[in-house]
């Protein structure tokens, strides 16, 4: 094999009939692309394929981390579709997904339109607005638990002082919205700045023309701005869905899945690591993984198109 695939380019230092060394074969025009992938593929095989196969295997078994796994066929999956707690967690995750994305895009668009101009101190404003994005979600969840505390939390003290009265933000009927608000607080800068970058790149002459033609501002926004921003909005929806389905850290420092805030990843974690029902936990994981993949595969195509090098 190596001998009949001489490198297309590169120098042959000595002799024509000599066999190519392994290194030369690997870096030859034909194999170089695959050689480059080796480290990645090895890592993926160990850290992705193996856990995936493992989880699929255990989703058909009963195992409590001790003794031998017992084959149980489809029982875990049958249990899954009838498990009220799991279905509620699933619905809640979709709720969080919907609320967070809608608010982030709505408010983000508003702020982007507001800040899409030159004003004094714009760099400072933008710099400050970006700060939450990179702070560890776990630390933020511990912090929010403190700030939103009913008895001595800063927010409730402020509420009391201005006469609204204290609000228990961890009440079962609103705790989920509190979690959403925490998440939105951290990620609002993301959609804001993506849309801001989009607004800045819009062609000016089209808007000039619209203005000259006497189009109203609302009409211009609906017919020109919004359609041009659609690809970016899609990117935001895709990436945020991907990250929101896996929401875990914000629950850790606050409700720990209590007061009606148990989300998909938390119930999976609880089933596997607190109740040690590995088989059932794996079934949950596979189900939520399949759902995420299906959702993202569709949207990923759009992202690839948006990213394709423009010629």
């Amino acid at each position, binding site marked *: 094999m190596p001998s009949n695939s001489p490198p297309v*380019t590169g*120098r042959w230092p000595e002799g024509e009939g000599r066999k190519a060394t392994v290194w030369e074969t690997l870096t030859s025009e034909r194999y*170089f*692309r695959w050689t*480059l*992938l080796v*480290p990645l*593929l090895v*890592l*993926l095989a*160990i*850290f*992705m394929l193996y*856990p*995936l196969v493992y*989880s699929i295997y*255990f989703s058909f078994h009963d195992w409590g981390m001790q003794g031998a796994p017992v084959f149980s066929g489809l029982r875990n999956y049958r249990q899954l579709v009838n498990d009220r707690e799991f279905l509620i967690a699933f619905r809640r995750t979709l709720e969080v997904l919907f609320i967070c994305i809608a608010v982030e895009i709505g408010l983000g668009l508003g702020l982007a339109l507001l*800040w899409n101009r030159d004003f004094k101190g714009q760099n400072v404003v933008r*710099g*400050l*607005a*970006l*700060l*939450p994005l*990179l702070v*560890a979600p776990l*630390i933020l969840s*511990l*912090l929010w*638990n*403190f*700030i939103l505390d009913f*008895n*001595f939390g800063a927010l409730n003290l402020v509420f009391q002082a201005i006469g609204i009265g204290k609000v228990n933000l961890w009440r079962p009927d609103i705790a989920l919205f509190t979690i959403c608000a925490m998440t939105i*607080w951290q990620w609002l800068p993301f959609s804001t*700045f*993506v849309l801001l970058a*989009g607004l800045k*790149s819009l062609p000016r002459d089209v808007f000039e023309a619209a203005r000259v033609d006497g189009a109203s501002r609302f009409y211009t926004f609906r017919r020109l701005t919004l359609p041009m921003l659609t690809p970016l909005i899609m*990117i935001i929806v895709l*990436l945020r869905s*991907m990250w929101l389905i*896996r929401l*875990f*850290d914000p629950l*850790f*420092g606050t409700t720990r899945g209590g007061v009606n805030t148990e989300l998909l990843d*938390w119930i*999976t*974690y609880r089933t596997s*690591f607190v109740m040690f029902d590995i088989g059932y*936990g794996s079934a*949950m994981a596979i189900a*939520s993984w399949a759902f995420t*993949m299906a959702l*993202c595969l569709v949207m990923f195509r759009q*992202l690839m198109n*948006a*990213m394709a*090098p423009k010629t």
Partner: protein
Amino acid sequence: MLKKLLFWVITGTVLVVIVAPLAWIYLTAFKSQSDIFAPDLSRFVFFKPTLGNFQALFGNYPFWGNLLNTFIVSIGGTIITMFASLLAAYSFARWNTGGGDILFMTVSTRMFPMAVAAIPHFVFFKTLGLLDTHLGLMLLYVFFNISFATFLLYGFFNEVPKEVEQAAMIDGYGRMEVFRKIVFPLIGPGLAVTSVFCLIWMWNEFFFAFLFTRSDARTVNVLLSSFWGGLQVQYGLMTAGAAITILPTLIAAWFMQRYIIRGLTFGAVKG
């Protein structure tokens, strides 16, 4: 005039909402226990600053050791991630290797529920004796960041024109030389941005650190989460630790303004 006022009122409100919680960390870190729990608005800002929390944190807890663990794991993980993803991203960008399928597979690693990827890894690591070691955590972080790094670098490589490489090859450069001498210097900024993102992500990661480290390799986030005790929460210690731990990420957010959005959207948005 009114419009301008309205603009600044909204901007000001948004900034207060964004900055206040972060400022709260730094205020609380310097408060004594009685000031922390005082139900008194004036003591929000006017209190007698104390270093007690920091002293307790440094004296009674292995804070610096754990911070060092976080540091070691982040740096090591970033180096491995960058190595593997740099090569792979080049291959994807130049030859579209695997027709996009392998690239999607790489990206999809982020979609697997971490909670359950953790079980097989746990068993696997236990057999190899990698639990509670830097190397073990590093490898997990590599796996969880490689998708992002590969995809981000893929975007940067796409911007290097193929013609530059072809010209070099006509001049007699081999593939390796083209990669080393032509392409590598051209994507310098991309490398820097991607590395910083990996660093921050690994720095912030909690779940795996929580499950896979106990003492030797415990990261600072796990230490901070342990202040969330069963009976009471040690807010002074927690905020003191958090104040130091989030500092690098805040600095990065401030100085990388231009690149953050571009990075987070995998280069789809030129920020």
